[in-house]
């Protein structure tokens, strides 16, 4: 079996990507034949680190809601014992509403438009009482604080209500919905409809704290999972200014060859620091260390950023942000989970991934025609969720 065990904390277990991975081929007779840095893939050497479905750079979508994980907190009330209110600071460029749910189930509402699934909204159903949507204006640095009567009774909550697992509901959902422009806009237009933060609770020193499981945005009819990457801005700028070699900003270069622009991010540590060739070199070689060159974290997966803006013939093939992406819910705590967390999601995912009700009809079944580039990128992946960066 060529699939390498999924490294912990890095999201879905290894899934076959094209080309299918047979077992590791024999060691090349002369390892030096892959002369650095212009290594070419030897067909006998197979990929031992999985690539995530790549991000396509070149269509940046401005996100109208900025809610950073670190700006979400639990605020204790003065009462004894204290109850905890969800509070967060955020920025909104449009008007909207905020809603908070505890122990909620997710429901994705989709319609088929031109043979393609479009999500028009995501709703959450909670068995605990929840407040009605609270309106907010378009403003920076707004603070939202939950009303006391809707605070979750954390002291009496069960472990399954506090911790996320694939069988459980989402312990905490923060949903920001845009109310302008109105919801009448066509589903295919590229507007941000919802911004969702899924979180769970953890207790350290008997104080509860929040840990964000995932953040995602619904843009047009597509759900994007948000990931932070270190170095994406430098990389983007360098791509705009030509090859990294000519750019002043050396942080956009691949840290290994110091020549090519960095296009590949290491997961779970999120360092965007490698070019395609060096990423292969670091992971393909039989005795390769498979560690992030920046922080030495084990390379769980690789995420390529494909700059479609530099390939006009392919970018012209369609609106590649939404094309080819059906929605699949998170199959595991996403790679954005802190490396220090105690997630060990591998077991139950492997056994339940396909039978879980949340996954019904969600696999990208018969795929419509895609631009050549996109099909190369997505084909065969059961987790086609686009990675979308915002910072």
């Amino acid at each position: 079996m060529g699939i390498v065990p999924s490294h912990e904390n890095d999201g879905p277990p290894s899934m076959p990507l094209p080309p299918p991975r047979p077992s590791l081929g024999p060691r090349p007779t002369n390892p030096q034949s892959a002369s650095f840095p212009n290594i070419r893939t030897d067909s006998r050497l197979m990929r031992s680190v999985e690539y995530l479905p790549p991000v396509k750079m070149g269509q940046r979508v401005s996100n109208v809601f900025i809610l950073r994980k670190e700006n979400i907190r639990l605020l204790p009330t003065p009462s004894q014992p204290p109850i905890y209110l969800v509070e967060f600071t955020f920025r909104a460029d449009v008007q909207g509403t905020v809603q908070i749910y505890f122990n909620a189930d997710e429901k994705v509402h989709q319609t088929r438009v031109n043979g393609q699934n479009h999500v028009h909204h995501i709703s959450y159903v909670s068995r605990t009482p929840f407040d009605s949507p609270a309106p907010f204006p378009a403003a920076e640095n707004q603070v939202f604080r939950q009303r006391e009567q809707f605070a979750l009774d954390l002291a009496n909550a069960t472990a399954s209500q506090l911790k996320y697992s694939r069988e459980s509901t989402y312990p905490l959902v923060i949903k920001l919905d845009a109310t302008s422009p109105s919801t009448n806009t066509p589903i295919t237009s590229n507007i941000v409809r919802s911004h969702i933060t899924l979180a769970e609770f953890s207790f350290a020193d008997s104080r509860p704290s929040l840990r964000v499981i995932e953040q995602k945005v619904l843009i047009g009819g597509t759900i994007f999972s948000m990931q932070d990457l270190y170095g994406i801005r430098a990389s983007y700028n360098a791509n705009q200014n030509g090859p990294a070699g000519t750019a002043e900003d050396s942080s956009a270069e691949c840290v290994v060859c110091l020549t090519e622009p960095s296009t590949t991010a290491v997961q779970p540590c999120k360092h965007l620091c490698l070019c395609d060739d060096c990423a292969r070199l670091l992971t393909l070689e039989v005795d390769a260390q498979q560690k992030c060159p920046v922080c030495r974290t084990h390379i769980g997966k690789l995420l390529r950023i494909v700059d479609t803006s530099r390939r006009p013939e392919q970018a012209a093939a369609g609106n590649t942000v939404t094309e080819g992406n059906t929605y699949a819910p998170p199959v595991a705590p996403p790679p954005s989970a802190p490396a220090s967390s105690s997630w060990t999601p591998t077991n139950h995912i492997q056994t339940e991934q396909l039978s879980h009700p949340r996954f019904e009809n969600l696999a990208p079944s018969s795929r419509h025609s895609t631009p050549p580039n996109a099909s190369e990128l997505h084909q065969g992946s059961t987790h086609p969720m686009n990675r979308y960066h915002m910072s």
Partner: protein
Amino acid sequence: MASLPKRIMKETERLQSEPVPGISAVPSDSNARLFSVVIIGPEESPYATGRFKLELFLPEDYPMAPPKVRFLTRIYHPNIDRLGRICLDILKDKWSPALQIRTVLLSIQALLSAPNPDDPLNNEAAELWKNNEPRAMQTARDWTKQYAQQ
């Protein structure tokens, strides 16, 4: 010999154009992978005022493999042996291809400021460092005067 990887050319260029204070590294005329290095002993250390010569060699699989670095100047240090070999994690298992000639030499310079007698390569020096640090420092100063002045 195979052509020189761009990375090595770039590093060489940048070492000349943006030199590190107290460190110089110049490639040999006959072998672009072999560098003559001089590290000035850090102030506040027993190696202050010393000029320590080293050689640094970039093996064929650099930067996947660490450079080979060796002191040519004799030095009294618990982590550097008689042959000039250096006990430093980033030159062995903690090597990362994101490190460069520049960062390696900075690490060696830092090692001169912070000897680590608990991970010795020169056992005799390490023992003295642990049992009688003032005397060990004096010996290091003496050696610096004796061997590291040119």
